[in-house]
């Protein structure tokens, strides 16, 4: 732990000061305070359990995610108390998932054995969503079972990560060096590259069919960046950009809603009450924050910006705690990403290394795509901001991934000798 315990307590202070302010403003009710109490108790309990079991996973990673989570909860309370109620519950569940992964699953390598099963799960889930999913705001990305909604896309993230990590660790050499000579290029053979191409093609195609463009973009970046990280061949990056360009252009030509997205991105002011409404309101909120922000509960974004509690939550944060606060949130996410890479560098086996890097890449691209969207640096594609946006599926999945990261770092910190399982692959 070494002093990071204090950082964890700081999170509690942020939570309660934030909620206190909102309570005084009459935006938080007693019920939320109770929920927050349970959440805080779980945070403390976790800290105690970590102490007792001499948990050796990356402490900064955990403290940082908790801080992001806390900021998200405070802002959700500010935006919509009813959503915050449920989100506190999800957050508590998320903590449980995290500790289950850390203390019950213990060794992530168990999960690396089912390479093609993971791939199948991913494609099947997406396919089922397309067939039976519920369509909300243009995208068919929800599953509804017995009144309980969840986003399968989020689960697919886990399956894909495991598939990619086990696939890449197995075929690394061939992907890097290549076996077939095409002119001056040395490419991997079809048997090796096939599963990767089929998997990526399938999942992206299904996502496009569901019109989940943001998630498709996240997955595409994940495929390409992970392939690059493992093989270190700039060739793959070089190929991916024109492919993205051509696909994007085709999408622009074929789909009306893509054209609308691009048009409102280029100039949201032309139709700031129609198609450009979302992005214009987002920018009005962000720009109103100036350097120090309007103060918690004082912004207009919370009720002016559509989807303020999900895709656009960062606009509200940037408004109410200003440039200073928004930068802090950016840095927290950057810390999480870089910390995940650090876990990757220290992991003792190839699978763990690739998995940790993949998780870091996933969180990084998700954050970049949605934040660049709300600040008009890229066309807007609505995806949740990890740990911040309202939504149980995203929250649980990201806590699960965090648990895996903690697991990898825990195993590497404990050293190879403490392992019961045979080490798969080798340390780089």
């Amino acid at each position, binding site marked *: 732990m070494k002093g990071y315990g204090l950082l964890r307590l700081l999170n509690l202070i942020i939570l309660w000061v934030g909620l206190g302010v909102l309570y005084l403003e009459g935006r938080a009710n007693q019920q939320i305070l109770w929920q927050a109490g349970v959440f805080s108790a779980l945070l403390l309990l976790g800290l105690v359990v970590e102490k007792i079991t001499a948990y050796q996973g990356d402490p900064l990673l955990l403290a940082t995610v908790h801080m992001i989570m806390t900021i998200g909860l405070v802002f959700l309370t500010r935006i919509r108390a009813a959503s915050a109620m449920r989100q506190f519950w999800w957050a508590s569940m998320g903590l449980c998932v995290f500790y289950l992964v850390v203390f019950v699953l213990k060794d992530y390598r168990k999960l690396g054995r089912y390479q093609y099963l993971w791939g199948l799960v991913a494609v099947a889930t997406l396919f089922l969503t397309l067939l039976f999913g519920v369509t909300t705001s243009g995208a068919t990305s929800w599953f509804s079972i017995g009144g309980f909604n969840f986003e399968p896309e989020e689960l697919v993230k886990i399956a894909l990560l495991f598939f990619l990590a086990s696939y890449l660790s197995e075929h690394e050499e061939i992907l890097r060096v290549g076996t077939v000579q095409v002119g001056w290029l040395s490419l991997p053979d079809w048997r090796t590259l096939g599963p990767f191409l089929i998997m990526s093609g399938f999942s992206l195609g299904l996502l496009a069919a569901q019109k989940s463009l943001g998630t498709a973009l996240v997955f595409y970046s994940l495929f390409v960046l992970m392939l690059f990280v493992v093989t270190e061949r700039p060739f793959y990056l070089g190929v991916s950009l024109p492919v993205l360009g051509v696909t994007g252009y085709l999408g622009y030509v074929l789909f009306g809603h893509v054209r609308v997205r691009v048009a409102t991105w280029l100039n949201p002011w032309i139709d700031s009450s129609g198609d450009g409404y979302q992005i*214009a309101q987002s920018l009005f909120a962000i*720009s109103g924050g*100036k350097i120090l922000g309007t103060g918690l509960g004082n912004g*207009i974004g919370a009720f002016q910006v559509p989807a303020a509690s999900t895709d656009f939550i960062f606009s509200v944060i940037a408004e109410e705690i200003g440039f200073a606060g*928004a930068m802090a949130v950016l840095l927290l996410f950057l810390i999480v*990403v*870089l910390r995940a890479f650090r876990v990757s560098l220290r992991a003792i086996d190839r699978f763990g*290394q690739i998995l940790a*890097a993949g998780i870091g890449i996933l969180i990084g691209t998700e954050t970049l795509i949605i*934040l660049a969207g709300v600040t008009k640096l890229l066309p807007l594609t609505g995806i949740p901001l990890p740990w911040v946006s309202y939504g149980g599926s995203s929250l649980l999945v990201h806590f699960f991934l965090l648990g895996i990261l903690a697991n990898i770092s825990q195993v590497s910190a404990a050293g190879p000798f403490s392992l019961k399982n045979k080490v798969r692959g080798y340390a780089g």
Partner: protein
Amino acid sequence: MKKGLRYIALGFSISFIFLSFGLVYWQVVRSDALLNNPANRRLILMEQRVDRGGIFDRNGEILAQTQTTNNQKKRVYPKGEVLEPLLGYATLQHGSAGMEANFGDWLLGIKQATPTQEIEQLFQLPRQGNDVVLTLDYRLQKVAYEGLKGKMGAAVALDPRTGEILALVSQPGFDPNSLDQNWAELSKRSGSPFVNRAFALYPPGSTMKVITSAAIFRSGVNTGDLYNCTGSTVINGQVISEQNDKAHGWVNYDTALADSCNTYFATFGVQSGDQQFLNAVKGFGFGQTIPFELPVSLSQITNQARVPKQLNTNLLAASTFGQGEVLISPFHMALVAAGIANHGVIMTPHIVNQVIDDKQNVLYKTSPKSWLTALSTEEAAKIKNAMVAAVNDGTASPGGISGIQVAAKTGSAEPGGNDKTHAWYIAFAPAEAPQIAVAVMVEHGGTGGGAAAPIARDIIQTALNEKVGESK
């Protein structure tokens, strides 16, 4: 794999830096620009947390006020339509306009905020805005309003010595107290009641001759020389005719202005040359932004904002008596009259007397400043004499007041087509020591003497009787 990871880490770090540039751009660079975007409801929403200050006339009459009953804020305008569209409005539904919009920073306590207001603003606490006290005199405003009611037009009165605006009426207007209910009907109503006609552009007609006079003097024309007006003349192949083709016979400068002889001004104006004329109009502020608290359209000689470098003879001839492409606002025309009254110096016009906070501290106070020196003292005196002649023995006689010497000039501007002429009247009084200058314009009102002069006369009479503009 290490190397690959380093590259990706570097890539992410750079992307995050780009994101932070994006934040700097929106939150610092473009912050104010977006605040003023009409689709941005921030200011209006913020207003709900502020008690908008009141607007008062120079004698403390309440013109606009925010009343709070049972935590419900309501903006009330006790004088109704009399001050509209000058005063404007400020509503949650329809935003703000007029003085309510232009003085919003003062009224909301944003501009030159006191330390208390600064802190309240920082934490968005409920706070009290500032009161704006105008130079306007409600009694005079009311007289001008009564005169213009039912017509389309504008009247502006100011103190030529200080530039203080005493009355500013534009008709048709609207009742600001029932704006939200009547919005749909008002927006469709003919005559657009939301447009402040005092700041809109019209051809000045013969009132332009007071400006042309300066060019004629400066080219060395002897004002005593006689000119034979035969009812029309031909200049450079263009026929210049008098109103109703009336022949004025032998006229000198004074009688030409008093009788509003077009051919005299066209002949000598063209003789003076385009440079002399363009310099004169520039001296009166054509093509310049008038330094006023509210936006006034730029007066123009040709169909472009700036005064041109040259003017062809035909256009020059028409411009000398205010036709051609000459356009000016009633507000600017009042300033022209005030400049002649004030020995050639046009004072910077202002309508805000002072701004006071809720503890009666004066935050801002205007003081008289000169804007332009349009004429020399002698030139101003010559024009004044001719304007006196116009009232005593010329077209401007309907504006005369017994016991007070008024100096005035009429105008009947052809708007183009077969429409009835715009009636103009500019005046100041008393001629020997002017205290008030007035410009009245009635759209399609007919002749200046008939339609506009009586309104100006009432304004001047009230002002001098009530000693408007004298310190309280």
